[in-house]
C-alpha cells in the first residue's frame, strides 16, 4: 500500500518527448505535457492536429514511436493494457455505446468486467444514472437507439465513471449534439468534474467549450503543442493561432 501512496504524489499523466508517426506522416512531434491531479485539461485544435492521437496514447490504444507516456509514473508500455484501460474512463462522440446492450448493461460494463458482483454493479449503475440525470427506473432497461443524442451522451459519461477511475478521457464528447443540449451538458459536466475531483483530458475544436470546461487549455497545431495556459491567460494570449480562435468567439458566439 505504501507503494500506492507514493504514486498518489506523482502527476497522473506525463508526456516525455513523445513522437508518433505513421509510415508516411508524423502525427505528433516531440510532445511534452503534464496533466496534474484533479484538473480538467482541454486540448484544442482543428481536425488532424493530433489531439485525438494524444488521447489514445494515454490509454494505449496507440503507443509512441519514440519518447514515453507515463500514467501514474509508469510507462504505458510497461502497464498491462487491460488493467491500464480499466483505470481510465473513455467517452467518445455519441458515447460509443453498444447497440445490443441495455443502458444498464452499458453502464455496468467495466464493473462487470472487473468482477464486481451483480448486486454491487446494479447499485452502482443506479447511482451513475442518477448522477448524470437519467431516472434509473425509466432508462435502465432501454436500448441506446431508444434514447436521444443528449441522453446517449449522458450514458456515455455514466459508463466512463462507473468503475470510479482516477482519470477520464473525453474525445469531442458533445460534438454531435444540438447547441442547447450541448450547452446544458457542458455546464453539468463542469460541475460534475469539480464535485467528483476527477482528473480529465478533453479534446475539442470548440474554443467556447474549452473556455467553459478547461482549467488549462492546450492549443495544438500540426502535431505540436503551441501553448498551454489557463483560460484567462489564453484569452489574453497574442499567439496568432490563439487569436484566430478567439476571433471566432467574438464573431459568432463560439458556435460552429
Amino acid at each position, binding site marked *: 500500500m505504501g507503494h500506492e501512496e507514493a504514486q498518489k504524489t506523482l502527476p497522473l499523466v506525463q508526456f516525455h518527448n513523445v513522437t508518433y508517426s505513421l509510415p508516411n506522416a508524423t502525427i505528433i512531434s516531440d510532445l511534452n505535457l503534464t496533466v496534474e491531479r484533479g484538473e480538467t485539461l482541454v486540448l484544442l485544435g482543428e481536425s488532424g492536429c493530433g489531439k485525438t492521437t494524444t488521447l489514445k496514447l494515454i*490509454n494505449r*490504444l496507440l503507443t509512441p514511436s519514440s519518447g514515453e507516456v507515463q500514467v501514474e509514473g509508469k510507462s504505458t508500455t510497461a502497464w498491462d493494457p*487491460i*488493467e*491500464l*484501460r*480499466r483505470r*481510465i474512463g*473513455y467517452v*467518445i*462522440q*455519441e*458515447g*460509443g*455505446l*453498444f*447497440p*445490443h446492450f441495455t443502458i444498464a448493461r452499458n453502464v455496468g*460494463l*467495466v464493473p462487470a*468486467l*472487473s468482477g464486481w458482483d451483480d448486486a454491487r454493479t446494479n447499485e452502482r449503475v443506479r447511482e451513475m444514472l442518477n448522477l448524470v440525470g437519467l431516472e434509473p427506473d425509466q432508462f435502465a432497461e432501454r*436500448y441506446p*437507439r*431508444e434514447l436521444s443524442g443528449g441522453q446517449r451522451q449522458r450514458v456515455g459519461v455514466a*459508463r466512463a465513471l462507473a468503475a470510479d477511475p482516477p482519470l477520464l*478521457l473525453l474525445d469531442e464528447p458533445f460534438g454531435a449534439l444540438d447547441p442547447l443540449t450541448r450547452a446544458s451538458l457542458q455546464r453539468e459536466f463542469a460541475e460534475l468534474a469539480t464535485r467528483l475531483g476527477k482528473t480529465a483530458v478533453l479534446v475539442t475544436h470548440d474554443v467556447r467549450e474549452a473556455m467553459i470546461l478547461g482549467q488549462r487549455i492546450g492549443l495544438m497545431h500540426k502535431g505540436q503543442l503551441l501553448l498551454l495556459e489557463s483560460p484567462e491567460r489564453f484569452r489574453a494570449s497574442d499567439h496568432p493561432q490563439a487569436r484566430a480562435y478567439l476571433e471566432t468567439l467574438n464573431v459568432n458566439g463560439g458556435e460552429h
Partner: protein
Amino acid sequence: MSFWQFLQANWSELLLLVRQHIMLVFVSILVAVIIGVPVGIILTRYRVLRGPVLGIANVMQTIPSLALFGFLIPLPFIGGIGTRTALVALVVYSLLPIIRNTVTGILNVDPNVREAAVAMGMTGGQVLRQVELPLAMGVIVTGIRVATVIAVGVTTIAAAVGAGGLGVYIFRGLRQYDNNLLLAGALSAALLALAADSLLGLVERQFSFETKRSVVARRLALAVAVVLVIGGAVFWLGRSTPSTANRIAVGSKDFTESALLAEIVAQMLEARGVSVERRFELGGNLPHEALVAGTLDLYPEYTGTSFTAILQHTPITDPRTVYDQVKQEYADRFKVEVSQPLGFENTFAILVRGEEARRLNLKTISNAATEAPRWRAGFGQDFMSRADGYPGFSKTYGLKFAEVREMDLSLTYIALSSHQVDLIAGNSTEGRIPTLDLFQLADDRRYFPPYEAVYLVRQDSLTRVPALQEVLSKLANAISTDEMRRLNYEIDGKKRDPKEVVKEWLKGKGF
C-alpha cells in the same frame, strides 16, 4: 395415375425421403457452421490469409458434385458410399457463404463501438464474444440462410452416392420418364427450401438491432435453436449402427435394370436370413470404386463394361474370351469374383422409329448409313466417351450424322419417339422399346462387344456369408432377354414398385 393418387400411394416413402433430406441439410450446415465461423473469425485477424482462403472456398464450390464424389469414395473415413460422403460434399459447398458472411459481418461492426470496447479494457476474446459476434450475428445468419437454401438444392445430388433424400425421386423420375416422381421430388425440395428460408429469416430478424424486439421473443428463439441443435444431434448419433457380421451391402448402378438385378439378390439373401443394406442407384463408376474400396459387397455388371471401361481393353467380340479374361483379371487385380452369366445381354441397341424402319425398309445399321447425313443422333454421355462407343461405332459403319447431341440416356428414348432425334443408342433390354414402337437395327458388322449380365462379388464377402454362393449359382442362366425386357417394362412402363415386381418374379421362378 394422378399426382394426388401417387402421393396417397407413396406417402410414407416420400416422408422418409423428406426426413433424409432434412437430416442431410441440417447436419451438413451444422458442421459447416462449426468450421466456417471460426475460420471467418481467423480471417478477420489475419488479413494475409483472407484472399487465399476465400479463394479456395470459392474454387471448392465450383467443383462438380459427381467429380467430388468420385474423388471422395476411395478415401478412408470421410469417403465411402452413402451419407458420410454426401455430408462431406455438402459441407464443402456450404462453407463459402458462411465464411464470407462471418468476415463481412465482423469487419462491418462500427469502428467506434469496437474502439470503445477496447478502451473499456475488454480483452480480445471479450471484444469478440460480447461485441463483434453479437453485432455480426445478423449478417452471419444471412450467410447460414443462403448456405441452407443452396444445400437443400444440392442435396438432391446426394442420391447419386446412395445417401437418399429427395434426389432419389428426381433421378428415378428422370430415368423412368415419370412426371409424378419428378414432381413429388422437385416440389418437396422447393417447399423445403422455402420453409428453411423463411424460418432462418425469422431468426435473422431477431439479431437486427434496428427494430424493437422483446427479450422474451429472443430467449424463445434461442431456446428453439438450442432444442433443434440438441435434438438433431441426439437423433443423428442415436441411429443404430449395423453390425457387419451377417450383413451384405448390395449396390446398383443408376438405371432400372441394375437396381432390379440388385433387388433380386437382396430379396433372395433376406429370405436366407442375411440382413441387406441397399445402396442402389449409384452414379457413374461409383459402384466399382465402392466395391474395390470394400463399402459394397456386390453389384450387377456387364462383362463388356468391365472389359473396356474398367480394365481398359480394346473391345473384342467373342463372349467367351471376354468373360474368361474379365474373371481372371478381376480375381488378380481386385480380389473380386465374377458370377456365372445371368442369361441375357444388355448391349447397346441402335434404335430408330418403327415407322421409319418400315418406310425405308431398314434392317441393319449398314442399311442406315445412307440415311445418316439427314439424321440427328442422340447419345448418352456414356456412349459418347467410352472405348466401345461413338468414335469406333461411327468409323466402323462410316456414319456421318447431320448432328450429334449428347444427352441423358433415359431421355433419348422419348426424344426419338417425339422426333427430336432420329437415331439413338439405347439398351437392348429397355422395356420401352416395344411400347414406344422403336426398332433395333442389327449390328451386322459385329461392332459391339458382348455385354453379358453378371454379378461382381468381393471374395472376402463370399467366405464371410456362405448363402451368397448358393444364391448366385441359382441365378446362373435364369433370366432371358425377353424376360428382362418385360421386367423392365413392369417398372418403367407400368410404374410398378420394383420390390413387388421382384417378389412376384421370384415366386414364379420358385426361388
